[in-house]
């Protein structure tokens, strides 16, 4: 993993940003098109993905409660629909995790790194101006 560039130190106890960092960070939100785009991408993926896996997962427990007959239907041999549906949850989790990490690596990481470096440069400039 790449190391972040060195930064000014901040509050030991809470780990909050220093005043300069906070000012730079706050100014950039809502103005910087890269930050707007980053938030938009994040929002558009994270909430639909969460809705998807929650609905898929909860349908297992709902069906187990409402339709034990359907869940107990043997599809082949002793393998019931319920057991195969439960196994499909594992597959679903693996696929969603894989899709998420692909998405984050291509759609989020480059933008986030760009933005972070831009903000750091901005801070250094602000500091020089104020000194």
């Amino acid at each position, binding site marked *: 993993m790449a190391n972040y560039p060195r930064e000014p130190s901040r509050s030991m106890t809470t780990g909050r940003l220093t005043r300069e960092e906070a000012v730079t*960070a706050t100014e950039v939100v809502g103005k910087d098109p890269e930050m707007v785009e980053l938030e938009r991408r994040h929002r558009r993926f994270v909430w639909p993905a*969460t809705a998807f896996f929650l609905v898929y997962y909860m349908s297992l427990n709902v069906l187990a409660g409402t339709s034990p007959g359907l869940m107990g239907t043997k599809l082949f041999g002793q393998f019931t629909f319920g*057991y195969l549906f*439960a196994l499909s949850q594992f597959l679903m989790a693996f696929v969603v*995790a894989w899709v998420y990490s692909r998405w984050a690596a291509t759609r989020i990481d480059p933008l986030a790194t760009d*933005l972070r470096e831009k*903000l750091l440069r901005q801070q250094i400039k602000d500091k020089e101006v104020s000194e």
Partner: protein
Amino acid sequence: MSHQTLSLSLFVLFVILTLGITIWASRQTKTAADFYSAGRRITGWQNGVAISGDYMSAASFLGIAGLISLFGYDGFLYSVGWLVAYLTVLILVAELLRNSGKYTMADVLAYRMRQRPVRSAAALSTVGVSIVYLIAQMVGAGALVKLLLGLEGDAAAILAIAGVGVLMIVYVTFGGMIGTTWVQIVKAVLLMAGTLLLSFLVLAKFGFSMNKMFADAATASGKGDAFLAPGLRFTSTIELVSLGLALVLGTAGLPHILIRFYTVPTAQAARKSVIWAIGIIGGFYILTTFLGFGAAALVGHEAITKADKAGNMAGPLLAQVIGGGEGSFGGDLFLAFIAAVAFATILAVVAGLTITASSSFAHDFYANVMRRGQERDEQAEVRVARITALVIGAIAIVLASFARGQNVAFLVGLAFAVAASANLPTILFSLYWKRFTTSGAVTGILVGLFGSLLLVVIGPNVMGPKGLIFKGSEPLFPLENPGIVSIPLGFAAAWLGTMLSREPASEEMFEELRVRSLTGLGAEQAEAAPAAPARSSATRPSG
């Protein structure tokens, strides 16, 4: 050699091994960042293995195998829920949390809030969730030691719980986070190896036919085809939904899992560690099929409930049968091995839980509330954390002696409900809701925490004919797992507390938090490998 002697020898060997790791690690623990966060030098895959070690507790190994062996299909629902829960962690929480916090869960919750009230509430809920979780681990450990030493009776069970509890607390107070991380890594490898071996041998018994295993398990259970369908443990849809919500939302509110993300250097490493954890944990939970159905078919209902009425000993008994049965050398050897693995499992989880709860108390309550974050004294903070570990351990031992006889997976399910109710609403609102306020955070945590605990106490497992108190009357709350009521309650309280207050400072800082959590600007850095000397100058929080 009798199986008592053999298992004891293996036990002692393991205890010495892990103590060695802990002592070695305690020499590496120099700064507070070392004690709490292993200096943020743990890599993504190491942390993934450690998360798995933290997560696959007595509930997963002993509890789920027991539930499946007694109730068939319904037990497997725990396996599914506990895996899918990692998607909540991965997608909504892990990376943003890594970028925003430093040592504890409260770092994120209190980021844009007034420090003292939020940190106090968060420390309380961290300790609360951890104690409920610890109770389950000690119940499992007690049952295990009782089986291994062939003890009979209630007094012996309580003694077993107390003895194991004391031993475990000792590890944590010496090892800190580096020691804990390594105990977890060693344990995860042991657990996976033991489970794979056991599953393979079970499958071999059935001529590598899962079909035959299912058929034999259904016949041996006496329930027939009903054993392969839902309904033997859970008959109410509401109970199932309640459990499902608690399991899938609880993980993202478990402080001992969340603080593991502070041990890695970057958000990308945090992501990678969840992916590793999902792979390892998912593989393990699929194998619980073999432990559970294998025990049902080969050990049988009667022998399982005779050893522990909640089924917690199904896995170790299965090992004994696979090895050649009671009294045979192979049986005793394999029982001792699996019991040692289970012991390691519990030890690692207890270590993770205790260090989390004590860190939160020392860092959030002692350093930030009692000392108001001034003139930070790292030595004192670590000392407070160690004392807290002893106190929390003692409380858990006492409560566990009342909870013995309950299934461990069920008990941990309660801890998940408490975590999802008390912590998750505040975590999500802090990270995603601009309008969120200190009042909202505090009411959300307190109502979620005490609401869920109260519903457990007035529910069927504590109150009424099947419970511990008021055996003559009906429980006031009908559900075993309170999730479906207490989780929405936690969210509603956090929302209401917010709407009844205004906090412009929190709204302003939200933007700072967004930039920091999404880009990693200003996130905590890894410390250089030979621990950097503790920085002495401390500034007061600027809020």
